[in-house]
C-alpha cells in the first residue's frame, strides 16, 4: 500500500520556528533529516513546499480560467510538504507519522490505484 503523508504547518509552529536561534533551528532540521534517514527504506518520494505566500491558484470552474494570488483555501493550517511511503497497512503508516519530529499535523491518505 502507498500512502501520502501530508505535513501541515500551523501559525504557532511557524512562529516557534521563526523564534529559534540559528543553532536551535539547525538542530530542528537535523531531527527532520534524521527522520527521513530512519524511514528511507519506506519513503519512496518526498517534497517540501515553499510557504503559501508563494502560491498562485487557477480556478477553472468560473468560465475563463481565473488566476488569483495565494492558496486555494485561506487557512491557519497549510500543507508544507508531502512524503510518499510504501508500507503494508495503515498501522505502519501511522507508526511512521507518529514519529514525525516537526510540524504538528500529519494527514495520511492512501494513494488511489
Amino acid at each position, binding site marked *: 500500500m502507498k500512502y501520502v503523508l501530508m505535513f501541515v504547518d500551523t501559525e504557532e509552529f511557524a512562529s516557534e520556528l521563526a523564534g529559534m536561534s540559528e543553532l536551535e533551528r539547525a538542530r530542528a532540521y537535523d531531527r527532520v533529516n534524521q527522520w527521513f534517514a530512519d524511514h528511507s527504506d519506506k519513503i519512496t518520494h518526498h517534497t517540501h513546499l515553499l510557504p503559501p505566500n508563494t502560491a498562485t491558484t487557477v480556478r477553472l470552474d468560473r468560465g475563463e480560467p481565473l488566476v488569483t494570488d495565494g492558496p486555494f483555501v485561506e487557512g491557519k493550517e497549510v500543507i508544507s510538504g508531502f512524503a510518499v511511503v510504501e508500507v*503494508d497497512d495503515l*498501522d505502519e503508516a501511522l507508526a511512521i507519522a507518529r514519529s514525525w519530529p516537526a510540524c504538528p499535523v500529519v494527514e495520511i491518505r492512501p494513494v488511489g490505484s
Partner: protein
Amino acid sequence: MSGPVDAELARVVRDHAGRLAASLVHLVGDFSAAEDLVQEAIEAAVRTWPVEGIPERPDAWLYTVARRRGLDVLRREKRHREKLTGVSWPTEPEPDDRLRLIFTCCHPALPRAAQVALTLRVVCGLTTAQIAKALVVRESAVARRITRAKQKISDAAIPYRIPGPDELPARLDEVLTVIYLLFNEGYLSSGGDRAQSRDLTDDAEFLAALLHRLMPTEPEVAGLLSLIRLHRARAAARFDENDEIVQLQRQDRSLWDHAAIAEAGRSIARAASYRRPGPYQLQAAIAACHAEAPSWEDTDWTQIAVLYDMLVHLAASPVTALHRAIALRYVQGPAEALAAVDELESSLAEYHLWHATRAELLRELGRRDDAQQADARALALTANPAERSLLRERLNWT
C-alpha cells in the same frame, strides 16, 4: 427485542456471531466480505429462529447459511469460492481471532459512531435494525456508517491485527471507550419508554467479559468489567413500579445482587495487584464503595473522595469533578460542595446533572428559589424520559 425467548436468541447469536466473523475473515481473507456474510446469516436467524426454534447447533446453522450465501455472492471470485468450499464447520477458531476483530472494529481511524455500530454488528451479531433501535438513530444512518467504515477499512488498508506492544495501550483505551459508551447508552436508556428495546448493557458486559478472558492481565479491562457488573448488580432497585428512576440513596439495597457485588470486589482487588491503576479501576472501586455500603449514610465517603481525587488526577474531566464535589458534600458539607460545583459552571452549564446537583445542594442550604430555578434548567436540558419525570416530580413537590 423483549421477553426471555428474545433474550435467549440474542445471547446465542452473541455467543456465535463474533466467532463466525473471525473464522470467515480468516477463511475469505477480507473483513468486509466476511462481515456481509455474517450479517446475512444473523438476519436469517432473527427471521427463522423465533418461528422454528433455536437449532441444536446454532454455530453450524449460522455457518451453513453464511457459506451458502458466500458461494452465491462470490461465485465470480474463484479464490474466495475455493476457500469457502474447502472448509467445513466447525473450525474452532483461536480466541485471538475475536480479539483481532474487536481491534479492527475499534480502530482509531474510524469515527466513534462507526466503531460502536461495527462492534455491535460484527462482534455482538446485532442486525442493523437492532442497532438503529437501540441507539435511537435511523436504520439508514446506521447502514451508511457501517458501509463507509467497511469501505475505509478496505481502501485505507486498516489491518486485521492485534496492535503491537507500542500501540497497545492507546488502542486498548479506544476499545474500552467503545464498550463504556455502549454500557452508558444501555444503562441510561433502560426503563421508561424504552423498556422494550434491546438491552445494550448485556452487549457491553459480554464484550468486557470477552476482552477480559482474552487479555486477563490488563487491569483496566478487569476494572471496566467490574464497573459494569457492579452497576448491573443494582439494576433491580433502579426503577420503581412506574418505571421511575429511584436514586441511589433511596434504593432498596436488599434487592441488589450481593453475590455479584462481592465477586466484583474480589476482581477489583486482583486487578489492583498489578499496580497499574487507571480510570476504570478507580470508577469500579468507587462503585464498589457504594455497593458494599449498608446504607447511603454509612457509605465510606472519605474513601470515595480519595478515589475521586485520584480519578481527577489520572483522567480529569468536568463530569468527574462534579462527582467529586458530590462526595465532598458528605465529607465537608453542602456549602463546600456547592462551591466546588459552582467552579465547574463554565464547562458544565449545558449539562443537566450539573443543574440537578446544584438544585439539591441549594435546597439543603435553604435556598429554595435558587433550587427551583436550577431544577427547571436541568429539566430543560435532559431528554431521557425517566430522568425528566424525576426532575419534573421534584419541581412539583419541592
